[in-house]
């Protein structure tokens, strides 16, 4: 049974994935703090490492075209173990959603609106997200088209306007860090920036033209990577090692922009673009959390639960982490391990079990 009857095209899935990945721009502080001038290179290496995992997600979804992650778990592992694994996924979605509710508000409060209580911004953000999510995946996918185009366009425009400020020596020396640091940075890219797109296993059953899923899934991820790559080149080229001590490297880099020798100060527009990204990502996570909870609890509709679950996310967003510093600590000490288990190990285990058990079986007992 589908909780949301909405259908989207594979092209819309591509925009959803791209928009979602662009929403991870808010966590660039940690990535730039650690990898500073090598971020542009590490994102390319991380993409190559991530590709097999993306293929696992696609293969799993293609094997069970009408089922989302919760339904796949039920079919592959049975009701009890399947539900237990789905609960794990659900908790992970909840924490991710709470964190992504928090990022835009926390960033605004720490950089631009110092005297504003975070809960005020969180409340506005929650209401906007709830409004978008209530109308289902079709509305979200239409929204994602605009957010992706706006973001990619903004990155290109800012990159062009900052081009004369980019200094080639800022990129050198390349990979001048111990191997453990390189692994740490790659883990951050793979788990925080890329791996999260495994949540689209909850969305793929809504795609109508299934033959194009693989292509558009990878194109969406490529747009996300390309956006980050442009941002990383812009930040590193303009700021060099200064990026590693900045609270918001992307907005900081745009401050260097000059239009006709006038200090433009149009970083606020860029901040707006980042907020739009954060909004898109939070909406997708909100929707996915609602769907997974709805399927686990066997509900007949998810729409009635948009507000109550949003209140839980609002409360969780206040208590999920203390501040940006502790959040960076968690990105270093716990998040990669949890992420690798949930994002990579479990989907891979599910796929292997499905292959070994020759699932799904059609009515006459054959694997289609």
């Amino acid at each position, binding site marked *: 049974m589908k909780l949301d009857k909405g259908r989207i095209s594979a092209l819309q899935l591509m925009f959803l994935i791209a928009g979602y990945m662009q929403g991870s721009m808010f966590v660039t502080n940690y990535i730039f703090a650690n990898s500073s001038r090598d971020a542009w290179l590490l994102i390319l290496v991380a993409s190559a490492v991530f590709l097999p995992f993306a293929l696992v997600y696609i293969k799993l979804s293609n094997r069970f075209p009408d089922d989302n992650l919760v339904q796949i778990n039920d079919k592959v592992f049975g009701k009890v173990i399947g539900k237990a694994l789905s609960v794990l996924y659900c908790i992970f979605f909840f924490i991710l959603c709470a964190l992504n509710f928090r990022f835009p508000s926390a960033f605004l409060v720490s950089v631009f609106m110092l005297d504003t209580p975070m*809960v005020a911004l969180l409340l506005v953000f929650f209401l906007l997200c709830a409004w978008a999510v209530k109308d289902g995946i079709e509305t979200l996918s239409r929204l994602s088209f605009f957010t992706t185009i706006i973001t990619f366009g903004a990155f290109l425009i800012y990159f062009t306007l900052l081009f004369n400020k980019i200094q080639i020596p800022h990129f050198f020396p390349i990979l001048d860090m111990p191997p453990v640091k390189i692994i740490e940075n790659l883990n951050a890219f793979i788990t925080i920036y890329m791996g999260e797109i495994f949540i689209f296993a909850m969305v793929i059953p809504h795609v109508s033209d299934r033959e194009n899923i693989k292509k558009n899934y990878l194109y969406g991820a490529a747009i996300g990577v390309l956006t980050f790559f442009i941002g990383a080149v812009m930040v590193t080229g303009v700021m060099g090692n200064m990026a590693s001590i900045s609270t918001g490297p992307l907005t900081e880099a745009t401050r260097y922009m000059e239009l006709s020798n006038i200090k433009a100060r149009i970083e606020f527009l860029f901040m707006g673009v980042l907020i739009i990204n954060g909004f898109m990502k939070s909406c997708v996570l909100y929707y996915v959390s609602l769907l997974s909870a709805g399927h686990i609890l066997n509900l007949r509709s998810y729409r*009635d639960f948009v507000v109550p679950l949003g*209140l839980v996310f609002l*409360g969780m967003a206040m208590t999920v982490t203390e501040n940006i510093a502790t959040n960076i600590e968690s990105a270093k000490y716990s998040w990669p391990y949890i992420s690798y288990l949930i994002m990579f190990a479990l989907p891979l285990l599910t796929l292997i079990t499905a292959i070994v058990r020759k699932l799904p079986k059609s009515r006459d007992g054959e694997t289609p």
Partner: protein
Amino acid sequence: MIWVEIILLAAVGAAGIMEPIKKKWWKELVVYIVIFLLGSVLLMLQTAGIKLPYLIDEVSKFFKIVLHLSYD
């Protein structure tokens, strides 16, 4: 402040439960009430200034101190 919050939450909650009651979806009604109360309690604890443990930070401490997993 907490009374304002309680009144607002009660109004939102009352508006929300009408739909499951109208459709006679009793299981959905129970789930709605439980999730709504959970969210409301979380928010009211915040308003009352009661400090809850920071979820991700506690997990990080567990990984760092108990499991000794870190890049350092």
